[in-house]
């Protein structure tokens, strides 16, 4: 009897007691479940994206130089004024960034579309060709830079020896003031066209055959079918490719640094905004100025991407 009593009274007693610590945490976490589960991602974004951005913004408004721990003064928009009126390094760097990105993108998309069309229809040995085409993509950009630097060496490089065999005089390639940027664009095209091919090929395979067949029946030739059927249908994919590749191309740093080093050569001939900002902070230790360049660069990237996204929306409609 007493045993039964005890057994009966135990739950009643525990219900009356204040809940334990474990129970408290448990109840709290249950109530805030959505925050708790989202927290890791939010902390990640906060620490790795928002904080550096805000810190850079702050630095760009100070005269920080030498050491970031040294005393700095708040100087408002002075750095931005200095940068925006700098026709010696900043504006030429903007020009080079745009040229590099623009030319590389056009070449990559045109070539990429061509190759994707060739690979679209099944053929023998298709697998091997696809693997071979993807090879440049998996190589490390710095290694690619070093490789091309050796090939393009004006005195002992392979490129000039090859030209010599067919009777063309040696070219300065990377070492020429006027040819260096073009050569780095070539390297970028060599490395990144495969990625564009990959994206476009995915787009092509998802197209349905009917419109093309209908046009064929109506007697349209290959060019007409491409320009009036395939290309318009592919436009959203093409814009995605441009968007992805464009952001990357704007930010290119590795191959430029690996081939021409700090400052982009003796005449700053391949100095893009990224290379310039790197030099400002790592060579000159002018963190304020460098941050201002980076914030402006960030705005340029956001701006161009916004334009492209608008275009994509218009096309999709």
């Amino acid at each position, binding site marked *: 009897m007493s045993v039964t009593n005890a057994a009966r009274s135990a739950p009643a007693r525990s219900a009356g007691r204040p809940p334990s610590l474990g129970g408290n*945490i448990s109840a709290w*976490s249950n109530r805030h479940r959505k925050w708790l589960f989202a927290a890791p991602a939010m902390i990640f974004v906060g620490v790795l994206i928002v904080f550096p951005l805000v810190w850079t913004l702050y630095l760009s408004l100070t005269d920080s130089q030498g050491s970031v*721990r*040294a005393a700095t003064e708040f100087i408002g928009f002075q750095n931005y004024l200095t940068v925006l009126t700098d026709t010696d390094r900043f504006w030429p760097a903007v020009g080079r960034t745009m040229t590099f990105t623009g030319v590389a993108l056009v070449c990559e998309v045109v070539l990429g579309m061509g190759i994707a069309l060739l690979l679209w229809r099944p053929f023998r040995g298709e697998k091997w060709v696809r693997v071979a085409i993807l090879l440049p993509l998996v190589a490390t950009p710095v290694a690619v830079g070093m490789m091309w630097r050796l090939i393009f060496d*004006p*005195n*002992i490089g392979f490129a000039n020896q090859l030209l010599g065999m067919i009777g063309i005089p040696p070219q300065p390639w990377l*070492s020429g003031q006027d040819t260096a940027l073009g050569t780095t664009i070539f390297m970028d095209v060599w490395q990144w066209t495969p990625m564009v091919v990959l994206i476009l090929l995915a787009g092509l395979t998802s197209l349905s055959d009917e419109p093309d067949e209908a046009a064929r029946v109506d007697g349209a030739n290959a060019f007409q079918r491409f320009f009036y059927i395939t290309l318009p249908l592919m436009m959203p994919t093409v814009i995605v490719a441009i968007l992805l590749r464009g952001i990357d191309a704007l930010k290119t740093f590795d191959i430029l640094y690996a081939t021409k080093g700090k400052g982009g050569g003796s*005449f700053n001939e391949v100095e893009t905004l990224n290379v310039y900002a790197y030099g400002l*902070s790592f060579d000159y230790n002018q963190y304020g100025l460098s941050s201002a360049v980076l914030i402006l660069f960030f705005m340029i990237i956001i701006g161009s991407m916004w334009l492209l996204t608008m275009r994509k929306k218009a096309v999709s409609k």
Partner: protein
Amino acid sequence: MKRRSIVKYAAVAAALSLGLTACSGSGSDDAKESGTVRVTLANHVWTEGIKAAIPEFEQSSGLKVELTQLGEDQLSDQYNVKLNAGSDEIDVMMYRPLQEGKAFAKNGYLADLTEKVSSDSGWDWKDYQEGPVKATTVDDKVVGVPIITEREVLYYRKDLLQAAGLEVPKTMEELEAAAKAIKASSPDTAGFVARTGKSAAVTQFSSFLYSFGGDFTDSSGKSAVNSSEAKEAYAYYGGLIRNYGPANVSTDMSWPEAMAIFTQGKAAFYTEADSLYKNATDPAKSKVADTVGFAALPAGPAGSKPYNIPSWGLAVNEASGNQENAWKFIQWATSKERTLAAQKAGVPGPRASVWADPEGTSTYPKDLADAIAVSAENGVGHDRPEVVTVGKAREIVGEPIVASITGADTAAAADAAHEAFQKFLDGEKK
């Protein structure tokens, strides 16, 4: 059930994060207790020698050495990031006194070693040559110990000179005439090659500048890069490369590229730091190993005045909590015995006693040892502008070198560089 699992997940997460914290590097105090010294060194022949000898140090001192080895540029970037953040993860650091010394000292990255160097008479700080000591002393405080010194010497091809019936040039005029004769007799071989990069060439150009009677700044600290002597030196150095250098000469060459042209047998004369001589005499790296000769820098109007500088030194990170052990490592790595061993392996050191010892130069080609002896006597203690932001200063004073190489108006470039350099110097004073 639900509640219990959430508690379980929270516990796992907490345990994981604790585990991760435990893994994330040991702080300085741990290092001190466990007797570890964290040493960051540059890729260099000197480093190879030290690396091989580290077990010997570990055994005698009972300390453990954690070594990080990086290329020159990566090392520089690493310091910029870590020292800027006040990191205590580096105890001993290999640095370039003339490139980074002033900036690092100004930012408070380097520990004051004045007492330490003077307290040990057996290790003997007085044995160090004056020039290198000056370069590792900032505001009367010793902040580093020099380990490698270098001077600019003339590398040449004995066989080519012999074939052309030429003597080893003793003056700049003779050098130009010889380079011209060789380029004329065999158009595929350059008469002369040297660094051409705007920033990289500055150090090797400096000896020419001094030998013509100029310097980067005058005695009052004002820019002097447009003096008539400097303009002549710019014109001469660039002219040699433009007229008698390799065809299609690049304007980005630092020592690896210029050295490659010389060691591939494509140039007769080359002026470069003596500390790199192994690249030219090692048959594994050089096609011309058997025929390389060395001579002191030819004399200009003001005589032969090559730079004589400490290219690398060791310092202790001010933020390190492990400075005593760091000093023990430096003491060992820069001892007379280690310096002699390094010098025999081809790394010119900063200790007078090692140079005085015949064994110290026993492994050097005789003509190189002679050239070094001459250069050490009449050398100048800096090879670049002595400022805080050396990187920027080099780019400014290097501009006329490139202008001269490409055949642009050198005098105008020197005037423009003068204006920019003066502005830069004024900015640094603020």
